[in-house]
């Protein structure tokens, strides 16, 4: 793995590396597709394990992670890139990797739907994968409030009620003593 990392460092501007729990390297978003192509075609990382995003809302960034695997050397490497987190309904944009792995198009389609990250030219990227006719804030963003959405979208079923867990448990556990001090 050290040789691969050296080759990558020689060719690309590696911004950050972690080796604690597997190898993860951070590069500029502009370098990602070139690096993935290099890893796939030259270094033998032919298997795209996954592509996913992490919402760092505090830093106003999306972290995109491509995990690639070299099946011959049994090694794995995570490629990270940070892109600007757009304000919905504007979308963040990243280059597509579907020309390297056709399977990438499904991951990209899901990220578009769930995080509002667009991958222009990726096949069917605008088609819904899991959600249907969704026109609100993409639900996997940190600022999407699932409880609020649920309360606004669905009606409470008659005869059912919700208790606040804290006050309910206090009342149940300390009923004899009155309110807990």
């Amino acid at each position, binding site marked *: 793995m050290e040789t691969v990392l050296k080759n990558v460092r020689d060719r690309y501007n590696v911004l950050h590396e972690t080796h604690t729990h597997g190898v993860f390297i951070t590069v500029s978003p502009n370098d990602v597709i070139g690096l993935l192509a290099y890893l796939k075609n030259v270094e033998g990382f032919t298997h795209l394990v996954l592509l996913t995003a992490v919402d760092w809302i505090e830093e106003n960034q999306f972290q995109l992670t491509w995990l690639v695997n070299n099946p011959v050397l049994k090694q794995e490497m995570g490629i990270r890139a940070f892109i600007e987190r757009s304000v919905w309904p504007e979308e963040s944009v990243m280059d597509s990797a579907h020309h390297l792995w*056709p399977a990438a198009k499904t991951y990209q389609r899901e990220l578009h739907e769930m995080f509002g990250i667009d991958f222009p030219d990726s096949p069917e990227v605008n088609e819904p994968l899991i959600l249907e006719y969704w026109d609100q804030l993409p639900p996997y963003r940190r600022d999407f409030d699932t409880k609020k959405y649920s309360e606004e979208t669905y009606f409470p079923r008659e005869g059912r009620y919700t208790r606040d867990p804290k006050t309910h448990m206090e009342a149940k556990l300390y009923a004899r003593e009155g309110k807990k001090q």
Partner: protein
Amino acid sequence: MLFDDGKMQKHKTGQIVNSTTAEPDLGSHKYSKLWQGPNHPGITGNMSLELTLQGDEIKKMRTHVGYLHRGFEKLMERRRFINNFPLVCRIAVPEPDFNEYCYAAALEELAGIEVPEYAHWMRTLILEMARLQSYLMWLGGQAGAFGMGMVGQWTLYARDRVLDLFEELSGARIYHIFILPGGVRNTLPDGFEQRVNETLRVIEDTLKDVDRVLFNNAVFKKRAVGLAHIDPKWVDEYGITGPNARASGVPRDVRVDNPYAAYPHLDFEPVVEFDGDVYTRARLRWRDMLLSVDLIRQIFARMPKGGEFKAQLPNMLHWTIPKGETYKKAECTRGEYGYYIVTDGSKFPRRVNVRGPSYTHAVTLAEMMLENCNLADVAGTMVSLHTYPPEVER
């Protein structure tokens, strides 16, 4: 394919239009549209296949998921690490243990927890038992898709025997939540090994019967041999893992490639076949079941007879994990199952991403494979890919 003049068409941009972007002209009265699913015996769980047919030949297939979306990945971000166990086991219903293992292993790595050796052996035993019960259910489904419902009744009986063992071990038949961070929940009950051996004998007898009835059956052979062939070249392109890759001669098995738990202490090689069709994939999984039986016997022969089964852990309700990220994987019956977890130093995971093998098998691969396939073979092909919709949409 797909086009009225029988030729590849060119888009106005000059690019060759492939089948993923072209739409058949339904107004030409040459095509009909058929929805298979979301409830169909050919698919475990709820998933819909939108089929565009010309006669009984499929010209285009699109996978539609979303009928089972429960937002697990989102929900996990709002729950403490330990509170996520009831969620993770529900991501792949017939195989909860692989989820529990991957999630627990990822947390252990991020938190720096050492798992006792005995717990590693216990986990390996549970994972192999889980593999057996999942394969047995699958085998019944595969036979049923080709009109042999009786085989399913035999294999479900054998599966029930395994579920009885799980019930004895954990108190639950399906969602065991037996694997926890730091180890497992308990030791083995008295006489458990003997009861496992009895069940293994039942499974072996069942598999012998299945071999005679299914794999030597003229109808099954005629329909499954040569059907839905997976080219070894597609393995990397389409992210194919597990039995679907191994049946095409590509030896991908996480248990061997990146051994985890007690697998480094077991003697085995991945089962590999070469023809890559439905028959070969069924045969490979049948052989994989025999391998699991062998592995369970090896585990009992080699595991310590007792010892610590759980590491010392902090108070789970106030457990914080340092900032970091990791990916842990295991070999389930469908291929590589993995959890990518990002933590930010708080009591909650920042992001949990589940990499289920069905994600690529059920969508990109199935859409490509089913083109030009006969309508009658759709159920058999989909079962042969062994996909579970819940792990596509998590």
